[in-house]
């Protein structure tokens, strides 16, 4: 592996997930040496385990966090607002693989939805036109099924219930994807053996993750200095205000320094804004890249909820791909339903271990155990839709709580917007109707899990006063500071975010590579 001297001013990438891993590959592929600092370990498929709590304990980000706001997660999981991964590959190691694109108007929700009270909607500085090619590149990297001539995954049991119900209630737009796990061998990865456990890291390697594709390929270029177990705690800058290095804790909690000519922040929507805030200085008393005051604001987590239904015959939903079932009929903005934006329905299966904890956090008694007892006969789906950005939903530094290094822990504040609540209620009703149409004998409205989609806390904007980064992912304030993860999303759309995060990172990577080659940085 490449060794870059700590005193050499390098291109430094913080995080190796969807955004960071993709940046590392784009830059090294273009001949640019990089240091990638990743807080977690480098785990390989043989380290992954088919055990829900085991995998969670192995990889989830469990550093100290606090919560506030009216969302139920703050009550159910006050110290665990998110489900994110601390490992090489980031949360793509645990992701399922749903890869829808944004629709054109979802880049322009302020113009499309109009003013919605309490929402800080803003149009993106880019649209589907600029993104189309990058979406194709990202789909080809991920190997999205149903796209680029790639085959569809077969119907598993959970999908059979879902698709039949969808058809019964008059939906048309259901299918087993697009999904980031191979139906047939593709790009060096084998076809799915329907082994489930996508949320636990895919041992079979059929699922795309940056740990499986981008990071190994970046290492193969000979230009990547990957440092796992390296947790960045501060970005430093020179007298002119440009960033010039990072401080990080190594595995033995020793403080290390790496000089930098460019810093790319890709730590996800909680840690990226937190790091910018932690990097405050005399020159930047409110944190880096924060002249707009928008760092940490407009935190989005998607409208979510799950519906589990019990039947009188076996389903065995856990066999096969975790989420390979998709329905788009409710995704279009149609204010007649009583809310703005739309949502997808996606099949979802969790094992008894997670079901016990997540079906109804705090729940007990006969009704609860009837569902658990019928585990074999359960089918399940996840509801995921656009939530309204709000200025005060934000990541701040806690005044009291500290992480393992004694640094202020992030507080995640989230109040649900009435639009989010109206959409969830509507979605639950529709999901119940779908399952009832195929004979459900009990249905359960499961509340949101700790957030798996975390977006918007360093939003992209045309004007410097409205956001943190420009349309290339470059911070408005500091010309050699870039952000490449879910935090740059101006608004969240209904789509699962990772395809868009990856497409944006490819775009930012190409731009940064060309700027570096032209000596513009």
């Amino acid at each position: 592996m490449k060794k870059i001297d700590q005193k050499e001013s390098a291109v430094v990438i913080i995080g190796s997930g969807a955004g960071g891993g993709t940046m590392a590959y784009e830059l090294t592929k273009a001949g640019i040496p990089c240091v990638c600092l990743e807080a977690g370990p480098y785990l390989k498929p043989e380290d992954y385990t088919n055990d829900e709590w085991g995998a969670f304990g192995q990889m989830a980000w469990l550093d100290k966090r606090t919560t506030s706001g009216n969302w139920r997660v703050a009550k159910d999981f006050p110290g665990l607002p998110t489900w994110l991964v601390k490992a090489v590959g980031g949360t793509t190691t645990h992701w399922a693989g749903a890869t829808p694109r944004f629709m054109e108007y979802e880049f322009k929700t302020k113009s499309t939805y109009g003013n919605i009270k309490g929402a800080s909607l803003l149009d993106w500085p880019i649209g589907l036109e600029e993104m189309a090619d990058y979406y194709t590149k990202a789909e080809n990297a991920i190997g999205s099924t149903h796209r680029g001539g790639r085959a569809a995954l077969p119907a598993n049991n959970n999908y059979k219930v879902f698709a039949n119900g969808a058809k019964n209630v008059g939906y048309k737009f259901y299918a087993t994807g697009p999904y980031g796990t191979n139906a047939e061998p593709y790009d060096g990865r084998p076809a799915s053996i329907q082994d489930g456990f996508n949320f636990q890291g895919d041992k079979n390697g059929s699922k795309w993750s940056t740990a499986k594709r981008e990071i190994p390929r970046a290492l193969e270029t000979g230009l990547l200095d990957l440092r796992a177990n390296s947790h960045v705690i501060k970005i430093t800058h020179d007298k002119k205000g440009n960033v010039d290095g990072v401080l990080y804790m190594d595995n033995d909690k020793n403080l290390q320094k790496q000089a930098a000519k460019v810093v790319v922040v890709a730590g996800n929507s909680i840690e990226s804004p937190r790091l910018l805030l932690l990097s405050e200085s005399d020159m930047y008393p409110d944190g880096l890249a924060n002249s707009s005051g928008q760092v940490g604001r407009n935190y989005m987590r998607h409208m979510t909820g799950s519906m589990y239904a019990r039947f009188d015959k076996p389903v065995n939903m856990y066999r096969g791909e975790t989420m390979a079932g998709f329905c788009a009929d409710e995704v279009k903005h149609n204010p007649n339903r009583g809310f703005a934006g739309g949502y997808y329905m996606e099949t979802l299966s969790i094992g008894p271990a997670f079901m016990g904890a997540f079906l109804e956090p705090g729940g007990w008694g006969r009704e609860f155990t009837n569902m658990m007892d019928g585990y074999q006969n359960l089918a399940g789906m996840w509801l995921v839709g656009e939530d309204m950005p709000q200025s005060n939903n934000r990541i701040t530094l806690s005044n009291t709580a500290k992480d393992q290094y004694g640094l202020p822990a992030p507080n995640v504040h989230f109040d649900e917007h009435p639009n989010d609540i109206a959409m969830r209620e509507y979605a639950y009703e529709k999901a119940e109707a779908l399952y009832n149409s195929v004979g459900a004998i009990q249905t359960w409205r499961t509340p949101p899990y700790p957030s798996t989609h975390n977006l918007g806390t360093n939003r992209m904007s045309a004007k410097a006063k409205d956001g943190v980064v420009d349309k290339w992912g470059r911070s408005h304030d500091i010309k050699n500071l870039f952000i490449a993860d879910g935090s740059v999303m101006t608004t969240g759309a209904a789509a699962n975010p990772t395809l868009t995060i990856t497409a944006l990172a490819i775009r930012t990577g190409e731009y940064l590579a060309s700027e570096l080659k032209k000596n513009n940085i």
Partner: protein
Amino acid sequence: MSVSRRTFLTGALATTVYMSLWSIDPAKAKINAGSKKEDKELLMKMVRTLYPHDRFPDGPYIRTTDDVINKGNSSPENAIMLQEGIDQLKSDNFSKLDMEESTKYLNKMGRTAFFEHVRGTTTVTLYNDKEVWELLGYEGYSSDQGGYVNRGFNDLDWLPEPRIEEHPDLAAFLSESPTKFAEIKKMIANELN
């Protein structure tokens, strides 16, 4: 797993859930509270009342109760909480109540630290028990057995085989502007009226 993870979830109801996963090495904890036979029986009755499964044998409930006791002794504060909870059950004659009465009783108890400790530990430990997985028909670990591709991932036969491909109109549906879409909806609605 390190002791510090025990505290990563604290709050109204979740402390114990996560305590049961990563907290202490039970072998090293000094067990005091709840170790008497009658105390154990009381706790096991509470565990069963909270999560009743008629077809579960005693085994999973015994293991879960042991875990409730182990984790309840993870610190002096916890041991006090556990002992006080047990004493309360005793003085309220919990052992004499039938299923309906004991359910009512636990409902009234509210979310005390003791209640949440027993409930939270149980919801994780009971449903993470391998014998329970078997009882529920969950096969778990699958990669080492070649996945489910040849072991019934698509064996559901009480519904017709659905389409797996996307509907041919999907791309048009997604690219339609929402105004146009709303207009079409209105046209359809008018047509139907």
